[in-house]
């Protein structure tokens, strides 16, 4: 099933890592909201509704989205919040526009770094009886998944090592941070914020000068919560999300159809699994594809031309940043990461321990797709 109306991303703002520390969280959110709206050529008066996503443990507020009311223009407006994942705010915003009740949505997620300990905050996400004492945090979950992938896929370990050496933050270290992940393979969390403006096709029709990244397909799904219930060397929720997104976008051959991809890359192990699931690369050719530069900015299929989360690991909003960066490529606003006129861009986002939540979004330069 696809959506009732066409829509597009018409404005984006990404600030990650935030390097200037003189602003409060609310000032940071306000700046990002204004910037995304300015990118769309709009003001707050054009915003019909808002969907935000934040994490209570990282924000230090019991209902973290409360801080968004004034700072993102929410007073007297309609705000929803999806604390399950930053990328889920995009999904909810798209569904709200497609419902016909709204013509525009401002979608935002953020990741502050004032928390005294990320691992301790993340450990609160493990069930208190079985997993919390492991200890289970994002890094250990990534490492568990990496070890499962290493054991299950013969080509994985070598390809992951090769991929790590091509990334901007390659440390070259052989020290193990959390086995089998090398020190530097999982970057330090960074403060970040992402904001997007979604608009319906009728809103865009009245404004022919707006640069649009049209939504062609969208799939999202979840795995079970307990890691013990999952085969961490597989990602069936990603299979479900990809199938839906590609079906809506009419993509049968992703390798030749997709011009650029922004994908979650918390570890090279996960990135390789995701690229295979997305049909962008097969395990038999992982190493050769990486060495040949196929996924480089000037390669045949650029992956993460923005630099991905390796240059800014804005933990809770990495997913929404991937979506924003893919939309920027289509809109021609990706700055120094911009590729020459891509027609189809893919965004992949994963969240939760060992990629529990999976989301795939397809953008195109033309309006086709998703609409019934």
């Amino acid at each position, binding site marked *: 099933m696809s959506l009732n109306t066409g829509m597009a991303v018409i404005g984006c703002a990404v600030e990650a890592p935030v390097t200037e520390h003189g602003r409060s969280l609310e000032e940071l959110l306000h700046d990002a909201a204004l910037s995304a709206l300015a990118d769309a050529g709009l003001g707050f008066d054009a915003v019909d509704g808002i969907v935000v996503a934040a994490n209570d443990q990282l924000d230090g507020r019991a209902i973290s989205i*409360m801080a968004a009311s*004034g700072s993102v223009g929410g007073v007297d407006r*309609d705000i929803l919040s*999806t604390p*399950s994942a930053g990328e889920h705010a995009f*999904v909810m915003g798209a*569904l709200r526009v497609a419902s016909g009740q709204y013509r525009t949505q401002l979608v935002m997620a953020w990741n502050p770094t004032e928390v005294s300990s990320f691992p301790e905050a993340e450990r609160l996400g493990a*069930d208190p009886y079985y997993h919390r004492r492991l200890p289970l945090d994002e890094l250990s979950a990534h490492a568990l998944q990496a070890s499962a992938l290493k054991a299950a896929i013969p080509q994985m370990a070598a390809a992951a090592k090769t991929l790590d050496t091509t990334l901007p933050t390659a440390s070259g270290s052989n020290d193990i941070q959390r086995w089998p992940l090398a020190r530097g393979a999982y970057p330090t969390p960074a403060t970040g914020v992402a904001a997007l403006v979604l608009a319906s096709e009728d809103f865009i029709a009245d404004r022919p000068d707006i640069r649009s990244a049209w939504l062609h397909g969208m799939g*999202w799904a979840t795995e079970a919560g307990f890691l013990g219930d999952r085969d961490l060397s597989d990602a069936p*929720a990603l299979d479900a999300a990809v199938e839906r997104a590609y079906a809506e976008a009419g993509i049968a051959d992703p390798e030749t159809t997709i011009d650029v991809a922004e994908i979650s890359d918390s570890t090279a192990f996960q990135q390789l699994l995701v690229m295979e699931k997305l049909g962008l690369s097969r395990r038999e050719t992982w190493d050769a594809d990486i060495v040949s530069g196929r996924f480089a900015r000037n390669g045949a299929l650029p992956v993460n031309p923005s630099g991905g989360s390796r240059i800014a690991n804005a933990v809770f909003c990495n997913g929404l940043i991937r979506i924003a960066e893919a939309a920027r490529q289509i809109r021609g606003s990706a700055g120094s990461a911009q590729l020459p006129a891509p027609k189809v861009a893919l965004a992949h986002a994963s969240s939760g321990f060992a990629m529990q939540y999976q989301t795939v979004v397809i953008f195109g330069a033309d309006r086709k797709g998703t609409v019934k």
Partner: protein
Amino acid sequence: MNRPPRVGIIGIGQSAFKARRDDASYPDLVREAVNLALTDSGLELDDMEAVVYSLSPDAMVGIGNAERLGVDAVGARGKRFLRINTGGATGISSVAAAYYHIASGACDVVLTAGADKVGECGDSQTVLNKIWDPIYERQLPLGTITMLAMSGVRYAEKYGMTEEDMAAVVVKNRRHAALNANAHLRRETSVDEVMSSRYIAWPIKLFDCCPQSSGGGAMVLASEKYIKDRHLDAVWITGVGHCSESYYLGDRMGHAPVADHADAHALRRSFERSYQMAGISDPARQVHVAELYAPFSNTEFHAIEAAGLTPPGKSVAPLREGRFDIGGDQPVNPSGGTLCTNAIAVTAMIRVAEIALQVSGRAGAHQVKGARVGIASGNGGDHQFFGTMVVEA
């Protein structure tokens, strides 16, 4: 754009809410409500295309992103799944999110579910004290009770409400809850008993406060085509709205407030949006029954007014005259409302569920005779996020 499909409610499940549920874990409570809703709908878990998870502050269940551990309880593995949190409004916001899944054309049948163990969380106020800005307002000290006590003081000054008027709300809602097998506080009370209960935050006394409840809620929503193809019974969501106020309470007080803390400005705006969508122009005449989120007795007055059932400041006298009783012209909170049951994550969902039961004639002993058009509301944050809905037979 294609015409959005009508969205119907086809299944409702709610626990018999209690102070404690030692017999059930948190996911067990979610599953309990899911099973009840599925049985009510006649559908199976496999029929659900997507799930909207209803959960307010993580700290209330002591697990960060506790929705992740609820995935199996709602049968969401491999399915479209996300969580909604707008504080106390979460439940109605989750029903709205499920509505958007269907109205958008993305899905035909969607489950929304959640649970809370507020009675077992240690102390909900300790959690809720941490919703305020840590620099400016947290140290006052503000809690959700002191926040709405200030609203009560302002309302009393502006419109002339007395503490006995507040007690009359409690008496009415407890009388209603005595008829509702799922309500938490079901013992009837009197104005004298309410007045003699100890002060919590003047003018709010113990009996003016909602309880801390444990239990779950779930609803199944479906498109009109899905409902008609399968000859299912349904009531229809005809109006959906949300509106927000400022974060800082200081913005609602002083000499130049953004909104007056006596009233519920954003709740009124939210109702205006729902009514416009539903084509309701005169709610005082067109609405037959209301389930309005009011966790403290004084807040039911401004909720009634924000819903347009009376003009601003004019709800006290008709309440005391019985207009909002079961058997009155326009019953408010016939279930006993939030004042008698508050499992925060699903409290506002139960408001919608109760209205759906009312307009379908299935509310049992607390049924409002002839109810065909009902309204529901939810309040969250620091009286900040408001969701409203119109449900019709």
